């Protein structure tokens, strides 16, 4: 970056330069993610023209089937921005589902109190992990690895058998269709069919928006970035680094539990092996969404697109019909590899241009 250019008087030139630069330097990865999503979607439209891929409903289903993952990814994004990691989220999702199921089906607790209790559990779980990480200075990977074991084991302690949820309130929420007033089509009988979403999607979208606002417009949100950018500097600038990290893990615990509730509304049942590998899905979605694991950079809407790309790949594989569902895993990994390499090249390029000036 040279100063002469910035100081140049041609305001307009400067302005357009800036926009281009910002896109390229700051949001390039996000840009690639979104472009990729759009390109993939268009490719889907062309390839599966005759299979109703273009339906609004198909698009909305991308959200529906992944509402829990979106919520969990939001928490993961914040953790990654601080430069940490949380691999316990999948197990937390499982244990919250199991707790919900057990409370409602075995202990006869109502849906609302059961949900409040699991949220509290998530909060406490996050607080415990956060305390170990920020105040005892133990590496996040190890703490959350233990957290992962703990939550999974706890799931099994609650019940080794699958529990199917029959609580009426809960099922009512789960099956409540919220119809959109647009995007419908006429079926063969000439009836207008409107696309619909479930409450979990609303939940997920609201969480993304709140998280976005928090990260951008609150002191706490900015501290998260500062801590991830350069912890030492953040401390010297007077930020409370430990408390910031602590709160992020608490928030993440809470969001994991909320994600668990959304997940449970989708599955309406719980078993020990539930949501296995979920944490890696969340990390992959977040990384694809432009949040590197090095911390300091990232956005929740990027992660949203990360999840959607994963959902799109899964949809492709299911539309294809006869190929192994393992392909979706392999393709996601390949994408992950691509993004990781891209991030690296970008960082290198930046360092090079800087050292040259």
């Amino acid at each position, binding site marked *: *970056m040279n*100063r002469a250019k*910035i*100081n140049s008087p041609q305001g307009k030139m400067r302005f357009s330069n*800036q926009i281009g*630069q*910002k896109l390229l*330097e*700051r949001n390039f990865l996000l840009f690639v993610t979104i472009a990729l999503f759009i390109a993939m979607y268009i490719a889907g439209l062309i390839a599966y023209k005759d299979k109703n891929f273009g339906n609004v409903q198909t698009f909305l289903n991308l959200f529906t089937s992944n509402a829990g993952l979106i919520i969990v990814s939001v928490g993961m994004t914040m953790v990654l921005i601080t430069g940490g990691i949380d691999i316990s989220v999948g197990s937390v999702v499982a244990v919250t589902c199991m707790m919900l199921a057990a409370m409602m089906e075995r202990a006869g607790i109502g849906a609302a109190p059961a949900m409040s209790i699991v949220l509290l559990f998530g909060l406490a779980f996050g607080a415990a992990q956060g305390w170990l990480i920020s105040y005892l200075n133990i590496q996040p990977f190890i703490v959350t690895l233990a957290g992962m074991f703990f939550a999974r084991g706890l799931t099994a302690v609650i019940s080794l058998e699958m529990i199917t949820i029959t609580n009426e309130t809960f099922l009512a929420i789960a099956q409540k269709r919220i119809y959109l007033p647009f995007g419908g089509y006429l079926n063969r009988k000439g009836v207008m069919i409107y696309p619909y979403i479930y409450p979990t999607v609303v939940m997920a979208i609201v969480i993304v928006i709140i998280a976005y*606002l928090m990260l*951008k*417009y*609150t*002191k706490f949100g*900015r*501290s998260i*970035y*500062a801590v*991830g*950018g*350069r912890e*030492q*500097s*953040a*401390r*010297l*600038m*007077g*930020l*409370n680094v430990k408390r910031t990290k602590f709160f992020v893990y608490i928030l993440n615990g809470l969001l994991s539990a909320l994600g668990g509730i959304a997940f449970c509304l989708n599955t309406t049942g719980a078993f020990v092996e539930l949501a296995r590998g979920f944490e890696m899905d969340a990390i992959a979605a977040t990384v694809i969404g432009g949040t590197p694991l090095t911390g*300091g*950079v990232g956005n929740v809407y990027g992660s949203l697109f990360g999840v959607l790309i994963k959902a799109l790949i899964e949809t492709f594989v299911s539309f294809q019909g006869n190929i192994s569902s393992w392909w979706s895993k392999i393709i996601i990994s390949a994408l992950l590899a691509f993004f990781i390499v891209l991030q690296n090249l970008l960082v290198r390029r*930046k360092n*090079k241009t*800087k*050292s*040259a*000036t």
Partner: protein
Amino acid sequence: MATKEILTMRHITKNFIGVRALNSVDFTLRAGEIHALMGENGAGKSTLIKVLTGAEEFEKGEIRLEGFDHPIINRSPEEAQDKGISTVYQEVNLCPNLSVAENLFIGREPKKFGKIDWKTMNSRAEEILHDFDIHIDVTLTLDNFSVAIQQMIAIARAVDMSSKVLILDEPTSSLDEQEVGKLFQIMRMLKERGLGIIFITHFLEQVYEICDRITVLRNGELIGEYKIENLPRLKLVACMMGKDIDILEDIKEEQSSSKEKDEDEIILEAKGLASLGKVKPFDLSVYKGDVIGLSGLLGSGRSELARTIYGADRVDSGELKIHKKNLSISAPIDAIKAGMAFLPEDRKEEGIIEDLSVQENIILALQVKQSMFKLLNKKDQEEFAQRYIDILDIKTPSKDTPVKQLSGGNQQKVILARWLLLNPEFLILDEPTRGIDVGTKTEIQRLIVDLAREGKAIIFISSEIEEMLRTCNRMLVMRDSEKIGELWDDEITQDNIMTAIAGGGRA
């Protein structure tokens, strides 16, 4: 001039493991004064600042600050900041991933309706930087800008926050002349406002240009507090250096004159060697018995020149000959095999391998040079380590002590031992005396001269010119990543060097 004391530190004492870093030091800062804190590396300046800002604890003494009727103790930089003491460090302590405006305002962002008001923040950031004559897009992230601009932003932040005391710890090392001028303007303005400013720098001119008072530390002791007009330059240098001036006076005497060198004695020859973005193409011939100093301001490319010869930084063009044979260096191991050794500037980051034992640290390079896979004889290892522990008088509980438990000076000796053990023909020593006590410094200087006498060649880099004046028979002058001249024997004087660095001299 106002004489109200706003900060007094009395009898501050602080020990590091086995070393007395500060011994009953007093320091007084008055309102509306710029007070230079002077001393050589290792004199205790930074420790005193760290004690004041709460980055380090101290054992004895008290600190009083205007507005507090009891002695204060800062437990962390935040606490110091809350009390009105802000600091700018030598390295930029900002977050590279945040925007310029955020870096100025983080922790005290302007708010509107409970949310951060980015618009106000950005415009206020622009205003603040305007005072410093910096016109940049404050919404870009900090890492888009050069270190100099980053440093100015750090200063701007500190200035904007400080209410009583502003500490500038070598802030000028990465700034150019114009930027320094701007900084001084701001400092004078703050002085008018009644702030107390503590200014630490290596550049004597700057001290005499802007400061009102000087406090000199040496070896953890207070030498004295002087009004600027009562302490002429020479006397200041004498105060800072202490008596080691006399010890060193005669070091160089026996050295032979070097201008007419025998062609057979050439060890290394560089032609057009360059590393992109680090050092521009340079030529250099090194002969047996040479002690070559590299002078230039920090960031002038002196370390980079040395690193390029050794292959520590990538070589992009040019050729290197050792004993008239072409040598391509793609990694440091090639340089080592060709008889070179390199003691890097940053001891902690690039020198010691902290968790390994003293012995392992000493024999490591020899092991790598001799064989990748065949372990050196255990007995030899022990003997080598012990020999150098004795020769260099390394103070360590045992050979097996992790090197991180040693004091800085002893760590430096361990690294020196590592390279001496290779019996290299050509040594590059980048700041070998930084941060170590005067006694060890003298020893290392002596060692350099002795090695040269044995027929080895040495490149010696130090930010203390006096040190190089005492030991070198040749001096390369660097400016803006470029070698701009060479001074030989009698030409090596402080004045000549200074003029060459300043750009007016012969090249």
